[in-house]
């Protein structure tokens, strides 16, 4: 109860303060801006309601990019982690590169991806997958390596093959870490999707923010941010739910 109540109360207090500051015109005065550029939470709320079909249409596009991109990152990341776990040579060769690759701000290669893959869903998926790949791979590899060596020895004495040890001991041991990595990836997924849309798209929440920016539709921009954040929260919630269903022994 307390876990939920306190953040909700804090959020309500912040929104309330914002509402007062915006509707009294104080906020616009401080920034020296016309009032319509500094919308109140109530105005953002009414934009959420009035533009609901436009927001939903674009949210669907972005959500699809996020989920499919995350799915690609999961398939490639888990496969790569298993490969690095299986072969020391591959791990020694690839792991430093995987870490070093994170120094490249992935968003700056978005324009290149558009050049390669065009304006369709391709570059967005690639961006989301590239951003999500790292936390998933690194956490999965850590999880696989944390398997109890005594349990592995025991499995050997119970006639287990390398694959059976992986399936019955190492993979279940790694599952909680895999879910942790996936939750981190779910937080990053909207960033990849929005940047992908900013570089070249004709739909999606990122695209909507850009066009609304040009038309000074500030209230709807805020509404879009709210929707985007709700999508990420829903995705994390879904991963957490799956974790509770799968990792029953914790």
């Amino acid at each position, binding site marked *: 109860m307390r876990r939920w109540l306190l953040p909700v109360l804090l959020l309500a207090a912040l929104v309330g303060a914002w509402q007062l500051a915006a509707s009294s015109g104080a906020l616009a005065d401080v920034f020296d801006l016309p009032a319509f550029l500094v919308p109140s939470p109530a105005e953002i709320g009414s934009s959420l309601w009035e533009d609901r079909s436009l927001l939903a249409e674009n949210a669907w596009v972005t959500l699809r990019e996020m989920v499919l991109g995350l799915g690609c990152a999961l398939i490639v990341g888990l496969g790569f982690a298993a490969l690095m776990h299986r072969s020391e040579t591959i791990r020694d060769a690839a792991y430093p590169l995987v870490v070093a690759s994170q120094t490249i701000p992935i968003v700056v290669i978005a324009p290149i991806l558009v050049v390669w893959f065009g304006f369709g869903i391709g570059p967005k998926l690639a961006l989301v997958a590239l951003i999500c790949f790292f936390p998933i791979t690194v956490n999965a590899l850590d999880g696989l390596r944390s398997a*109890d060596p005594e349990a592995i*020895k025991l499995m050997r004495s*119970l*006639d*287990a*093959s390398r694959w059976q040890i992986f399936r*019955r001991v190492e993979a279940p041991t790694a599952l909680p870490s895999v879910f942790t990595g996936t939750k981190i990836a779910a937080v990053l997924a909207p960033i990849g999707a929005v940047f992908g849309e900013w570089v070249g798209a004709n739909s999606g929440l990122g695209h909507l923010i850009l066009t609304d920016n040009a038309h000074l539709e500030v209230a709807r921009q805020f509404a879009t941010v709210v929707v985007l954040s709700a999508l990420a929260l829903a995705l994390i919630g879904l991963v957490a739910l799956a974790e509770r269903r799968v990792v*029953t*022994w914790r």
Partner: protein
Amino acid sequence: MSVSIRGLGHSYAELRTIERLDLELEPGGVVGLVGPSGCGKSTLLELVCGLREPTTGTIAVGGAEAASERLSRSAYMPQRDLLLPWYSALDNAALALRNRGLGKAEARREAGALFERFGLAGFERTAPAALSGGMRQRVAFLRTLVAGKPLLALDEPFAALDAITRAEMQEWLAAALRGDPRTALLVSHDVEEALYLSDRVLVLSARPARIVAELRAPAPRAADRDAAITDPTFVAAREQALRALHEGMR
């Protein structure tokens, strides 16, 4: 199944753990190994089970010296129960059968048939975390037996239990071995436990381990444990073993 160890030596890099050790174990016999902590008892068991290779000397289990042959002939029961938390008690007990390629239903049927005899009836589907320490240890022993190997290698199987449960489990194991005699090597830091459960007890010195005394147990696996361990011949044997243990530590 006989075990024959000749001139065994083992070291981890510079650290010599075992030195010139000879041991003959006749089929159906139980040999107890006691020694100070860290003297290499567990290493010795792992060597016999084919989980490690000797540095010098030979180990033959049923006449075979290759590690893979030793591994296929011996069942190793580690100090900790190492039950896999993602499997039920029954699935843990059936691990060796599953590893050998038996279907889930068949493996469960075969392992489940022994649950009653081990005082585990009704706990087949229970998660390991919900079992008491003694029950977990019984499941671990069942898992070792179900592997169906001729040699049992028991590494301080009851070390993690409280004194009362440990006494109960010793009585229980004695009864299990009376009903289903097996060749076994039993490592223990408890002289009394080793003398009660084994036919012979070998006292090992501090690292590098060598045999400093060999004692014949007065009443191996007697039905009445309390009577057996308070018998004057047992008490004398225990004192003799303790003296040897002290001398071996110098």
